[in-house]
């Protein structure tokens, strides 16, 4: 009986010690701030890399980065559940979001290009031809000067930022015909690479030699053409905050916008920096030249 008492006493002691320890560490991690950024998978690599660098330089800070998609990012930031919402779209373009509550921080620019399977034998299309391909009016590549192969459309999922940007600027707001949908750019690329006659669209950073990118109206998809808006299919990558950011959120966003990150990480990961742009585009798609840039 007394031995049992002893064990019970020991158990109680362990619980108390653990409780005190947990309480203490809670205090510590509270003192060392932490923020969470959630949303767009297209922007995730940049925020993750910047977050790692930042926490490496500022010990005791924690930046959690999670994917989940643009819709998740915007709805979480609207509810105030996280500190930063990552988005491929202007908040006003996503249904169910009150854009007025959110503050936009544009941290990168992404160019998007149509890609086709290498056997298609087409390297340039006019915008009108591209629209006819994606609306299902062209069903064989020989109708636009390519090989005798049926057209296989591959879309990103509905609500994806890449798809929204492509339909708005690449297809002049025409809606793509219902076709296969994939929920990641890597998957799209590998399917286009292996399926004869396939066409889809990805961000510049996903283009490699397994697929053929297309010029539109003889403008090739290059970063230089994006900065002047000659290549029209591009979008900003946004970090949204609810109200003006404070504390660590403010410092971290300032860090991502700083030249140190914009000139290194942003470029290395295949994005463009907004500072390279010679034009600016608003949520309605209106283009204004930037003076002096």
């Amino acid at each position, binding site marked *: 009986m007394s031995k049992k008492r002893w064990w019970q006493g020991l158990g109680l002691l362990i619980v108390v010690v653990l409780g005190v320890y947990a309480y203490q560490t809670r205090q510590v991690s509270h003192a060392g701030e932490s923020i969470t950024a959630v949303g767009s998978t297209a922007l995730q690599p940049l925020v993750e890399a910047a977050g790692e660098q930042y926490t490496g330089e500022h010990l005791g800070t924690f930046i959690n980065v999670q*994917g*989940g*998609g*643009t*819709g*998740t990012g*915007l*709805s979480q930031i*609207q*509810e105030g559940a996280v500190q930063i919402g990552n988005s491929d779209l202007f908040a006003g373009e*996503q*249904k*169910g*979001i009150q854009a007025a509550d959110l503050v936009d921080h544009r941290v990168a620019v992404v160019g998007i290009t149509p890609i086709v399977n290498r056997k298609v034998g087409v390297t340039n299309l006019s915008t009108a031809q591209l629209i006819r391909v994606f609306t299902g009016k062209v069903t064989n590549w020989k109708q636009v000067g390519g090989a005798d192969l049926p057209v*296989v459309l591959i879309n990103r*999922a*509905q*609500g*994806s930022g890449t798809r929204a940007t492509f339909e708005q600027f690449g297809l002049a707001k025409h*809606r793509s015909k*219902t*076709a*296969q*949908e*994939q*929920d990641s750019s890597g998957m799209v690329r590998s*399917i286009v690479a*292996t*399926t004869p006659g*396939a066409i889809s669209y990805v961000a510049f950073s996903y283009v490699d030699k397994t697929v053929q990118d297309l010029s539109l109206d003889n403008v090739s998809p290059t970063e230089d053409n994006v900065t002047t808006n000659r290549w029209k299919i591009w979008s900003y990558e946004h970090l949204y905050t609810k109200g003006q950011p404070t504390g660590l959120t403010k410092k971290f966003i300032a860090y991502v916008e700083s030249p140190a990150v914009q000139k290194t990480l942003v470029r290395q990961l295949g994005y463009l920096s907004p500072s390279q742009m010679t034009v600016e585009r608003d949520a309605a798609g209106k283009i204004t030249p930037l003076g002096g840039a």
Partner: protein
Amino acid sequence: MKTKTTQQLEQQLKRHSKAAKLEIWGRTISLTALLLIVAVVVAIIGFVASKGIATFTSNHVNLWDFLTGKSWNPNITDANGKPEVGALPMIVGSFLITILSAIVATPFAIGTAVFMNEISPNKGAKILQPVTELLVGIPSVVYGFIGLSVVVPTTRAIFGGSGFGILSGTCVLFVMILPTVTSMSADALKSVPRYYREASLALGATQWQTIYKVVLRAATPGLMTAVVFGMARAFGEALAVQMVIGNAALMPNSLVSPSSTLTSVLTTGIGNTVMGSLQNNALWSLALVLLLMSLVFNLIIRLIGRKGRLQ
């Protein structure tokens, strides 16, 4: 007035003994566990139902249009100003792929179970049992990946098209549900009493006649339960199917045209919608359809079980 000793005696007798305390303690623990699980199930059903019904109550989508509409574009409103949320392509896709994979898997599963139980119990126990158990343990993403890199190109080479579609999905699901159906069929065969077989053999029936006319007949309710169980698993499988079916919300016009299932649309769409919006609610409605269907599968299994007992 009671004396001191009788009072003490009374207390001693009324006090719970150690065993009685343990009894109460044990009951409380198991009751709490039960209540917790019931609460979780009720909460899940309640949440999915409340979200799923919102499409029809707060977004005013017609239930009939939802179930029979063929066009799924929640972002777009049609000519009448109603959102295009027709779930029929997904419902048809889910059922088609479930039924086809069950049709393909059943003969293989029952054949394997018969071999394991009746023809060669020794080899069956040594080789087939571990192999079947291994198949159960493979994660669905691995099946999906193999489907994507082996089944899809093969389908494309043989039947043309893009290779994505119900046929590829059926091939992948067939392998996925095979172990479930096999092991449950084996259990059903095992539960057939030994004297059935002895009586049949004593009457001069061959082994095959015994299996075909006696064992399989007696085990029919169990075998049907196994098949329905496999179908329930096929119906709910998301990841592997999503990787090979092509995810096009179109009515399947052939087995090799890209189509979609309830689960594949859910997994691709949920990250791109905002909580509380019509797009999100419509996905919850799909989840509700899935939940109701798995309840139906459960009911069928129970019904079969009950009928089997009566015989």
